[in-house]
C-alpha cells in the first residue's frame, strides 16, 4: 500500500527534496499551504507518482498552474480528505 507525501513549505530544501528521494512508485504527492509555490517549478517526479495541489491554497496566493502539460491534479479540501483515505498512510514533510 502506498504513501501520501504532504509538502507545506515553499522552500524545496525543507521537505520536497528529501521526500522525492524516498518516494516509491504508486506514492502520491500533495502540495498544500506554502507548498503550492512549488507547483510551477516541480522537479521531475519519480516513476508512477501522482502529484496533487490544493486548489484553495493556490487561489489564495494567486498562483497559476503551468498550463496543459502539467502533471499536477488540483484537489479541494474534500479531495484532500479523499487522498488521505485513499493512501495507506501520510507523511507530512513540514
Amino acid at each position, binding site marked *: 500500500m502506498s504513501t501520501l507525501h504532504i509538502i507545506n513549505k515553499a522552500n524545496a530544501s525543507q521537505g520536497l527534496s528529501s521526500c522525492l528521494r524516498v518516494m516509491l512508485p504508486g506514492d502520491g504527492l500533495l502540495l498544500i499551504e506554502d507548498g503550492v509555490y512549488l507547483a510551477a517549478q516541480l522537479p521531475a517526479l519519480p516513476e508512477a507518482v501522482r502529484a496533487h495541489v490544493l486548489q484553495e491554497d493556490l487561489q489564495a496566493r494567486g498562483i497559476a498552474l503551468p498550463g496543459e502539460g502539467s502533471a499536477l491534479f488540483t484537489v479541494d479540501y*474534500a479531495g484532500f480528505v479523499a487522498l488521505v*483515505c*485513499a493512501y495507506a498512510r501520510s507523511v507530512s514533510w513540514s
Partner: protein
Amino acid sequence: MQANQPPGNTVVKLTVVVHSAPYSSQAAYSAYRFTASALEAGHEVHRVFFYYDGVHASNALSTPPQDEFDLVKAWQALIEQHELDAISCVSSALKRGILDAREAHRYEKQAANLAEGFVLSGLGQLVDASLSSDRVVSFGA
C-alpha cells in the same frame, strides 16, 4: 490512482494532529478545514490532538480582531457540533501557559484558560488514537 483505490463509501476513522499555532502558521487553519471536510464527507474523526505549538488553539483568552477568522471559536463550534474528542497535550500546554482548572489549582496559578470543549491529557492519547485509527494526518511545525 489505480493502485490506490479509495475505500469508496467506507467510513474511515481519522486522527488529526496539529503542531502549529493559529495566527503564526496556516497549518493550524488547514487542520481545521481538513477536519471539517472529513466530517462533512461522513468520515469518523476519532480524535484531534493538539501538540507542541498546536495547543495555542485551545487558549480561551485568544482575542483576534473582529474582522479576522477566529480559529479557537471555529474549533469550539466544530467540537460541540460533532462531539469531537479534542485533546491538548498537557505538557505542551503547561509550558505555553494554557491550563485547565485542575492544573491552575495544582500549580497555584491565578487563572485557568483552557477553552471549553478541549481536554488536557498526555501524549499516550495520541499514540492510542494512532493505533486505533485507519489514518493519521499531521499539520504543521
